[in-house]
């Protein structure tokens, strides 16, 4: 056991900002392994790292932009997607990735989410879903499962949550997948696939938040959540997104649900430029 390992040798470390480590995430938090998968996916997809831009919003997952050594930007709450869209349109050579949490992308940025998916803007969105607002103290949000407890639903959540893959697929995303943090290899392949696919790709990653959500729901150790994933996950590639909602007693359906082709927003922009120019000539 030693702390003196050479940085360049390890792909994960070579893309981390070493001076910020150890990071602030709690012991057992699911964000770290998801970031590891993302970093290894960049390596395996063979993309030019100088052409990847990483955008995050606010929240525990929002810290990713500060920890990964890529061109990155930490936006205001919920606004990662419109920022990323502008960035991608301004410099279409960039491969734009949004890595943020459920509170940021689905709650506060929910409206941006459906419209970015509807326009099929060319980007990859990795959404870490831990079922609550972690950074602000464990409040319930639109992804908190029915009857689950949180700091603002101590008697159980009475609201029905979003079925996130269904929401983005219905809005028009061309690639939709869901994995848990425990499906690390599949997640890595999925991210590599999404990174190289044009159009709006969305990957939901379920990860434990032992400190807040876990503690309120009898899963106070990260291992409790991982055991829950292990026992309840079923891989169903190609499943209809409408059947994959998460319930407290049902299975966690994971897999790649949607992989289709549709003209991207950028291609549609070219179309209108051509039309306008044809009229002028």
């Amino acid at each position, binding site marked *: 056991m030693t702390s003196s390992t050479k940085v360049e040798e390890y792909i994960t470390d070579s893309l981390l900002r070493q001076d910020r480590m150890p990071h602030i995430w709690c*012991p057992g938090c699911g*964000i770290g392994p998801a970031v*590891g998968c993302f970093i290894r996916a960049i390596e395996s997809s063979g993309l030019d790292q100088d052409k990847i831009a990483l955008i995050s919003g606010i929240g525990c997952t929002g810290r990713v932009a500060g920890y990964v050594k890529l061109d990155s930007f930490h936006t205001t709450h919920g606004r990662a997607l419109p920022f990323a869209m502008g960035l991608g349109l301004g410099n279409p050579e960039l491969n734009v990735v949004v890595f943020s949490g459920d509170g940021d992308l689905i709650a506060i940025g929910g409206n941006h989410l459906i419209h970015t998916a509807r326009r099929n803007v060319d980007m990859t969105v990795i959404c870490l879903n831990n079922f609550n607002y972690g950074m602000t103290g464990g409040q319930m949000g639109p992804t908190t499962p029915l009857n689950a407890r949180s700091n603002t639903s101590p008697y159980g959540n009475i609201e029905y949550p979003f079925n996130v893959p269904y929401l983005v697929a219905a809005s028009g995303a061309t690639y939709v997948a869901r994995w848990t*943090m425990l499906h690390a290899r599949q997640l890595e392949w999925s991210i590599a696939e999404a990174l190289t696919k044009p159009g709006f790709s969305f990957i939901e990653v379920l990860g434990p938040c032992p400190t807040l959500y876990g503690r309120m729901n009898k899963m106070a150790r*990260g291992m409790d959540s991982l055991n829950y994933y292990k026992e309840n996950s079923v891989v169903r590639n190609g499943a209809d997104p409408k059947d994959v909602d998460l319930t407290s007693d049902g299975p966690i359906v994971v897999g790649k649900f949607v992989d289709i082709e549709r003209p991207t927003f950028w291609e549609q922009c070219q179309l209108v430029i051509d039309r306008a120019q044809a009229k002028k000539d």
Partner: protein
Amino acid sequence: MKLWRTPFDQAEKATRPAKVLIDKDRCKGCSYCVEFCPRGALVLSDELNPKGYTLAAVADESKCLGCGLCDILCPEFAIHLVLNFTES
């Protein structure tokens, strides 16, 4: 075990000797590596790091397959595998 022929994928599937390095400054003792190691090569030790977290440690290096699961599950980026490691 004696094989009557060499499996076609032996080169890529064979276990690789690996040295597991755990960064004491990063480990927060979540126990994922310990629980998911298919060979039980790791343990949670009694040792604490300067921040007071229990540290994971290598119990028996000879058991390790070099599968890398501990590395990819560690939330702290604390585990590094040195593959093709041979004691000199």
